[in-house]
């Protein structure tokens, strides 16, 4: 895929997602993830994190893209926005691991030119963090993410309203992002 074309497509998908199109949002995240993974892995190698840790950074970046998506202005290019978020998350990861901040982190062009990389890692970090959510939130997250159920099915299974599932899910996602940052509250 041409560089400009990939970016245009991500922008179009994000606009549709902002309007509430879940299928477009899934396509966006699915298409972004391999590119992010390749860039993050390469940078992790250079700053002394192993490729498994790279997948944690990818997951944390996806969480941030999700939670901060209203900071993207539809008329601005989406590539620098995504790459800046990824770079911030790499810097955080490096700081957490106590590595000296020496090697510079590569730039945005790499995001578009990166060959897609597959997900070979079943990460433990995210599972551990999910384990720190409350019981109900854990069952909710497992039902939606691992069992692949819809919000409606999850609501029925947990005997909650769909609205309550949505509210609890959003809180759980914010909590997961906070746990990634190393905050406990």
């Amino acid at each position, binding site marked *: 895929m041409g560089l400009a074309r990939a970016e245009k497509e991500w922008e179009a998908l994000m606009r549709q997602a902002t309007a509430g199109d879940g299928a477009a949002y899934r396509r966006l995240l699915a298409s972004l993830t391999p590119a992010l993974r390749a860039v993050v892995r390469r940078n992790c190698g250079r700053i002394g994190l192993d490729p498994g840790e790279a997948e944690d950074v990818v997951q944390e970046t996806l969480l941030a893209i999700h939670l901060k998506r209203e*900071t993207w202005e539809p008329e601005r290019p989406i590539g620098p*926005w995504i790459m800046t978020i990824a770079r911030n998350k790499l810097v955080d990861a490096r700081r957490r691991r106590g590595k000296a901040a020496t090697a510079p982190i590569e730039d945005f062009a790499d995001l578009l030119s990166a060959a897609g990389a597959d997900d070979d890692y079943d990460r433990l970090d995210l599972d551990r963090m999910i384990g720190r959510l409350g019981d109900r939130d854990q069952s909710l997250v497992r039902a939606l993410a691992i069992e692949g159920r819809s919000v409606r099915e999850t609501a029925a299974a947990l005997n909650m309203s769909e609205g309550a599932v949505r509210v609890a899910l959003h809180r759980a996602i914010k909590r997961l992002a906070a746990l990634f940052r190393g905050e406990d509250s």
Partner: protein
Amino acid sequence: MKTDALIDLLVADLEPSRLRFRSRLRLELACGGVLAGLILLVAIRLRPDLGAQLASPRLWFKFAATLTLSLASLGLVWRLATPGAEVRPWLKMLFLAPLVLGLGVLAEAVATPSSSWPARLVGNYAPFCVTLIPLLSAAPLACLLHALRRGAPADPGLAGAAAGLLAGGVGASLYALHCTDDSPFFVAAWYSLAIAIVTLTGYAAGRRWLRW
């Protein structure tokens, strides 16, 4: 858990058309500004001779300085919290405010005898200035920080400090409607001190609350 499963989770949490961050920031700033304006009108009051002073260049100088600061820091603050936005030109714009201040001080030095300078610098109500400007800035700062929690600042302390500058600029613009110490010397010393207090508060609050 695999990343694909995380994507399922994020897609399930998608909600349509939330307010863009930039609009939200402006909206909350407006709320904070209106609140501070009400505090000024009800509790602090306008200066009684405001109408008569409208012809005074000293009064307009005060607004020139505080509004320049407010506009420059408004441009800066949302960019600091928006990934990929160009920040540097707006950091430079920030220097316009001290420049305006310096020109005012220079004009005052040329226009007045040096024997009157100490009295102009000290003014009559400096303690009010350094307490009421932070007080008037509190609501705008709180609203800005609340909005910024939805932002993604690379440097939370810096974003908080920029919010403090903006809130301080708004608070000082409002206080200028009350304040009868009109010399640019006074403004350069005491307004700056008051705004610095608000900026430091914003910095500390940003480091504490704006991590993401």
